[in-house]
């Protein structure tokens, strides 16, 4: 609900399948992956994807035929994510550092440590990057947008996107090499 998705019990499914909706269905796996990089948790990511799909169906008329539907959807999803972050930070309170959470594991702290490991070294390092670097990496490195396309979506100069991607890649590369902790957290 945090992202504005309609609660289940109120949701009315669309009455007919349109080609537009079907092209959104085809995008769902990539939307879910993109949302995971932004939101981290699978549940919040899927809430984001659902809210983005609902918004896209309502806004179909504003999609310019011949342009990239994936980039359009990423933009909608990212806007919802930003909305959630703006409102959510105050509601949720400060995030609990992973280390603090680990210290409450008490009876079975090892299980918790193993759960963190199981998320995957790359994913954990990625989720520790500052949000600006994370979204730039997600758009350019993972989803394959050009620097120009990403810059247009993010509303920043192309040089800024390149710099964010470079810093993010550097931090990822370093954390994987174990040379030093991921910077900028």
């Amino acid at each position, binding site marked *: 609900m945090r992202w504005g998705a309609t609660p289940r019990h109120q949701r009315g499914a*669309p009455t007919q399948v349109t080609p537009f909706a079907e092209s959104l269905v085809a995008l769902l796996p990539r939307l879910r992956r993109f949302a*995971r990089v932004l939101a981290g*948790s699978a549940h919040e990511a899927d809430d984001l994807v659902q809210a983005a799909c609902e918004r896209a169906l309502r806004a179909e008329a504003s999609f310019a035929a011949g342009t990239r539907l994936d980039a359009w959807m990423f933009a909608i999803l990212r806007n919802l994510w930003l909305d959630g972050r703006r409102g959510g930070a105050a509601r949720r*309170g*400060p995030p609990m550092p992973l280390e603090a959470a680990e210290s409450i594991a*008490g009876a079975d702290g*090892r299980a918790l440590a193993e759960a963190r490991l*199981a998320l995957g070294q790359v*994913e954990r390092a990625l989720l520790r990057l500052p949000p600006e670097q994370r979204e730039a990496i997600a758009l350019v490195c993972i989803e394959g947008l050009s620097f120009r396309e990403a810059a247009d979506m993010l509303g920043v100069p192309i040089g800024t996107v390149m710099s964010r991607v470079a810093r993010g890649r550097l931090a990822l590369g370093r954390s994987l090499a174990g040379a030093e902790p991921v910077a900028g957290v």
Partner: protein
Amino acid sequence: MTLPDETLMAFADGTLPAEAAARVAAAVAADPALAERVAELRAGGAAARGAFAHVLAEPVPERLLAALRPRAPAAAPWPGAAAAAARRPPRWRGGLAIAASLLLGLVGGWSLRGGDPGPGRIGPDLAAALETQPSGLPGAPALLTTHALADGGTCRVFTLEEGEGSLTGLACRAAGEPWRLQALVARRGAAQGFAPAGAEDPVLADMLERLGAGPALTEAEERAAIARAWRQPR
């Protein structure tokens, strides 16, 4: 010689024009620090490309398809789902001491069937509790619910409480396999004045749904399952 990271990145990706690339190559060859930076950029780029790739292979949750398609083929993941959703209490009770919540780690539920011995191993104390402790009794851990999987596997929701908060987790086993941790959620401040959300926790509910788990076993069903060491009834 210092070169901006953007230039080194373009060099690492092979997208610099030939002349510029030759200049950078010479600089990199002469300076181990630059060479290391290029290697890190390259490794970081390669790692980023594959990040979360497993999400592409996951089945898309029904609720997302339902948001885009007519309702007709949408079957509830298990018969009690609709009833459970109707019973579901408000997830976030305002005013209670849920200062912060944090998803710590999701161990992909789909690894359950892969038999991968790596991730999700759990400690002996928790394993023993999962094996024999009935749900609903106080303890550390306390077991909250038990759910059967269609393929004969079993999932159990447990919680560990401490002064500062609680951990609620989902552990599952395929028939004859050891218990493995599927998901773990840490909530600060949940210990006071808030019953553990257990299977109602959105993260765990989502995971149970993905695994195709059934509704919580009754006390009698659970007792019988424990008595036969979680083997399939004959």
